[in-house]
């Protein structure tokens, strides 16, 4: 009898055993993961649609000649850096160091704000050059349309991330926060970084 109970407990504690917490996380973190996965599917749809447009288009402008790659690389640098700092914020929150957590959160927000400012500059420059959703001076209409949709959708996520981070930072400064809330905000911020890694490679470089 004891052996069967021990065996049952061993199974429940295994990766696929279920147990009290099937995925080994608390509900808030697991819900964040579910949200991230569903959001990833949305971006996957957008990027696969972009691949479809690229493959069916008879030509495509050379992106490195259309866009300022110095600016795009700088934006990538800023977002990767803010992601690293966000990871430090999570570490500080877990260690119970609220002061360090607030400092790192603030630096992450600054990074995100710089990224958004650069994107606003890039958009305004692109619009000034005559690029619209249905036509552009560089070639096929899909070129500008996919740019606005993909980078716009990502930019909206950055803006949402900044709002979430600001709320978490203010709450942390007031002492009203949990390590899980900082970690969940961090998961979202890293996801925004992951999406940009794809956009950078497939939209700007390929």
């Amino acid at each position, binding site marked *: 009898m004891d052996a069967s109970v021990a065996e049952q407990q061993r199974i429940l504690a295994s990766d696929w055993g279920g147990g009290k917490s099937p995925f080994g*996380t608390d509900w808030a*973190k697991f819900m964040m993961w579910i949200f991230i*996965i569903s959001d990833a599917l949305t971006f996957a749809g957008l990027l696969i649609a972009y691949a479809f447009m690229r493959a069916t288009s008879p030509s*495509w402008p050379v992106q490195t000649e259309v866009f300022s790659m110095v600016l795009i690389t700088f934006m990538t640098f800023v977002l990767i850096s803010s992601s*690293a700092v966000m990871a430090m914020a999570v*570490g500080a929150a*877990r260690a119970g160091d609220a002061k360090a957590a607030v400092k790192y959160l603030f630096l992450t927000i600054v990074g995100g704000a710089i990224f958004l400012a650069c994107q606003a500059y890039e958009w305004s420059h692109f619009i000034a050059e005559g690029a619209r959703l249905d036509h552009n001076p560089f070639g096929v209409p899909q070129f500008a349309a996919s740019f606005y949709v993909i980078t716009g959708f990502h930019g909206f996520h950055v803006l949402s991330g900044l709002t979430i981070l600001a709320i978490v930072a203010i709450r942390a400064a007031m002492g009203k926060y949990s390590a899980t809330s900082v970690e969940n905000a961090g998961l979202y911020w*890293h996801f925004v970084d992951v999406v940009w890694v*794809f956009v950078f*490679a497939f939209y700007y470089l390929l």
Partner: protein
Amino acid sequence: MSHSTNDHAHPTGNRQYFTTWCWLLLMTVFALVIGYIHSMPESIKAALLVGVTLAKILLIGRIFMHLKFEKMNLVMLTFSPLLLSAILYFMTSGETRMTDPTHEVITHMGVEVPSPGSHEAGGHEK
């Protein structure tokens, strides 16, 4: 301040985050170099960029998002969008590359779509 259920399993320190950040920047520069080599065949360029991108997201996922501390079922769940993307891409690739033998008429609004050879100036050739 409260802690989550798996607090014990996060020994990652700032030094490892810094190392990861350095690797990510290095791979970004590598991807940039690949992007600037216009003479490279598209297929090789695509394969290299996909490889670098996957390496980058694996690093971000494992280190920054702490996936290396999570249970395997959650880790596998997070990679489902990648798998579905690959399925969707290869499902449509026959049609998009116009290699599907069932592909007969390619027209848009009654006008024949230019063949892959008759591209506009200044763009990538297909």
